[in-house]
């Protein structure tokens, strides 16, 4: 009470701003969640794991070399540790999934599901060559490959992967450095123990032991939990342990690729753009003319027409659906011109449907243009049409743009008519997404990727024309 006015105002201003920003955060949260989820694993979404998964750092190989240890992990980590105190000397991560290694005197061969085959120099871990695996297109969904295998025999490397019934084996010539051929192996698995890492228990070790190495009376153990242990064989006790550096974050950009492969999204996008674009053009042409006529002239029937416009908004769209469907079919039977399932049919319907509301909005814009301007032009000898074309239309452009975009967005959003009146070639995005989502009910990741891609075009459009939309819609609102 004793506080001066400006202090109270300042405090309340700050409080309101904080509340507003908090609300803004809550408002945008679902959209952020959608984008974030589209980069996650489907099961992570289903079980509610919020953070992104990190690649596992299971230690797969330990090789002693001149008092040091070469430690290779499942995330493509190539590390050099000092054997004496397990201090990390070098670290390089190749960010691979389902890694497998072959160690040679000069090179490390690293094969992975997501990145192909690496040949890494043992002298300098940063020095490598990469070879892509020769898959046929769409043959293997790489993010579903759980384990890969690699074996060296003579000058050849043999590579295989654990994926559904896929049992081809690749042969890579390590001297000519290229893939020579793919060995098709019938029903028999090439690597009999494929898919099972031979692990074991060891007292005091967290997780399973995948890798062991003995050197100077010490036993080095690498576990599935990503820890390296040093065990003193003479005293029979653990003397040191060391955690591997954390694995890379698994951001699954592949969701978008997978989604794009499963859904014919390019076609839907094209259809939606064509249909919504033409709808916007036709509907705006019709509604601009009608709105101008309604706002300028008190002709007989004007009231009837205005009421009819409002009445169309009250009719449930589902009432049109069957009659229009049957009208389309009958028209095609009579005239031979295909309408159902063509662009023409759906564009016609959308144009007719979105025109009344556009007239309703645009009428306000034309009413706001001063009549005197047009009267002056008429006196100067302009025809009625010239007045409309050169004066009214030019002045109403912001309103026309805003209404046009509103029409476009509404058409982009329409599901029911597109569902019934389009076919496989003219399907729009909502119908395509509905179909896709019905077929992949458990793939939440792909669903979210599809949702993001469906939203993206309108967001771009909105940002390009944001100023016009805000100005146009608000101007219309104020005029009622």
């Amino acid at each position, binding site marked *: 009470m004793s506080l001066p006015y400006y202090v109270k105002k300042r405090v309340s201003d700050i409080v309101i701003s904080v509340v507003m920003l908090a609300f803004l955060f809550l408002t945008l949260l679902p959209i952020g969640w959608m984008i974030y989820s589209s980069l996650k694993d489907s099961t992570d979404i289903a079980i509610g794991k919020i953070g992104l998964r990190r690649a596992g750092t299971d230690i797969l190989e330990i090789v002693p070399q001149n008092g040091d240890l070469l430690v290779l992990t499942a995330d493509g980590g190539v590390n050099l540790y000092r054997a004496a105190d397990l201090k990390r000397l070098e670290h390089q991560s190749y960010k691979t999934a389902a890694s497998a290694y072959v160690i040679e005197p000069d090179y490390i061969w690293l094969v992975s599901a997501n990145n192909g085959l690496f040949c890494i120099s043992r002298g300098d871990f940063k020095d490598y060559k990469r070879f892509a695996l020769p898959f046929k297109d769409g043959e293997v969904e790489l993010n579903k490959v759980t384990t890969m295998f690699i074996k060296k025999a003579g000058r050849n490397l043999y590579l295989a992967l654990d994926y559904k019934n896929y049992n081809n084996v690749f042969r890579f010539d390590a001297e000519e450095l290229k893939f020579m051929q793919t060995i098709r192996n019938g029903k028999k698995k090439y690597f009999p123990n494929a898919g099972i890492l031979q692990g074991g228990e060891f007292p005091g070790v967290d997780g399973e032991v995948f890798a062991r190495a003995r050197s100077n009376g010490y036993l080095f153990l690498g576990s599935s939990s990503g820890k390296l242990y040093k065990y003193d064989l003479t005293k029979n006790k653990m003397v040191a342990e060391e955690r591997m550096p954390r694995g890379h974050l698994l951001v699954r950009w592949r969701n978008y690729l997978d989604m794009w492969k499963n859904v014919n999204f390019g076609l839907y996008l094209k259809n939606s753009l064509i249909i919504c674009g033409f709808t916007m053009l036709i509907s705006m042409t019709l509604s601009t003319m009608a709105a101008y006529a309604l706002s300028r002239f008190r002709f007989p029937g004007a009231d009837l027409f205005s009421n009819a416009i409002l009445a169309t908004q009250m009719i449930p769209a589902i009432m049109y659906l069957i009659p229009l469907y049957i009208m389309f079919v009958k028209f095609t039977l009579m005239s031979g011109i295909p309408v159902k399932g063509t662009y023409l049919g759906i564009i016609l319907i959308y144009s007719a449907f979105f025109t009344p509301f556009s*007239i309703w909005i645009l009428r306000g814009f034309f009413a706001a243009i001063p009549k005197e301007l047009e009267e002056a032009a008429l006196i100067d000898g302009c025809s009625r049409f010239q007045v409309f074309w050169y004066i009214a239309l030019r002045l109403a452009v912001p309103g026309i743009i805003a209404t046009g975009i509103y029409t476009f967005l509404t058409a982009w959003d329409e599901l029911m008519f597109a569902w019934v009146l389009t076919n496989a070639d003219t399907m729009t995005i909502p119908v395509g997404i509905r179909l896709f989502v019905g077929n992949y009910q458990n793939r939440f990741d792909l669903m979210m990727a599809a949702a993001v891609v469906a939203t993206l075009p309108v967001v771009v459009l909105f940002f390009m024309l944001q100023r016009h939309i805000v100005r146009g819609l608000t101007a219309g*609102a104020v005029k009622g």
Partner: protein
Amino acid sequence: MAMSVNKKGLWAKIKQYRFAYYFLAPTALAMLLLHLSPITQGIYMSFLKLNQFTLQQYLLAPFVGFENYYKVLIDPGSPIRIGLFEAVRNTVIYTIVVTVGTLGVGMIVALMLNRKFFGRSLVRTFFLFPWIVPTYVTGLLWGIIWLKQGGLVNVMLADWLHILPFKPSWLSGPNTIWAIIIPTVWRYWPLSMLMLLAGMQTIPDELYEAADIDGASPWRKFWMITWPMLRPVWFILILFGLIYNTYSFNIVIMMFGFGAGYPGEWGDLMMTNIFRNSFQLWNFGTGAATSVLLLIVMIVIVNVWFRYFKKSEELR
């Protein structure tokens, strides 16, 4: 009415305004062909026994008079009645809550934005974001947000904030009505906000200054100045809110079973009910009858609303 005042004959007037008729002709033709014609057929359909066997005959299907209406309104044993009461109840709750909710949230945010502060237009643009998300995406997205185990809402309320002792199921049981109301409000309030904000900016400052001098509280200033001055805006918002929310379809259909499933007795709306009756149970006749009844109710509501508005306009 107008004609009696005017000395000219009707024909002369039509001739005088022929320019307007030229401009109106294409729209009128489109509306005759694609609005009036199908709607007449739709109403006629509601008097026919139209199902999967008679669909081939279409308008020549057996005429049954008011039997469809009897089935929908009175006959307690007709299969069409199953779930109809729930759909009506849900639609009423949904429409009222969503209309009031979008208006309320839009009003609060518009009031918060109607001040001078740094980055105002940027904040306003960000607030518009939900409105750009297509409704089918909204349904899809919130379907995942409401998931029992991994949904964002349950994770936030139960795992992080510990407001809820357990994870409730949002997509089945009575919670469902909230699971469809909240996304709809989320999707539509930015438009209300934008229009209300534009309306607020036209209210002259003098009114508020005078109220300040009189020592009016902010609460009183809102109800005595802002709310009445915004009348034309909220009139339109409530009118179109009532119409569009009654006919809401996309969000529900995408959230539950993606068009194939039943949204449950607390999630079913009139539109999904009619759609299911027509296209999954093939009862086109009764579907049309339900639509016609809905249309009649809508016409009554809109007329009442207009009349109320006119009356209160005269009282001012």
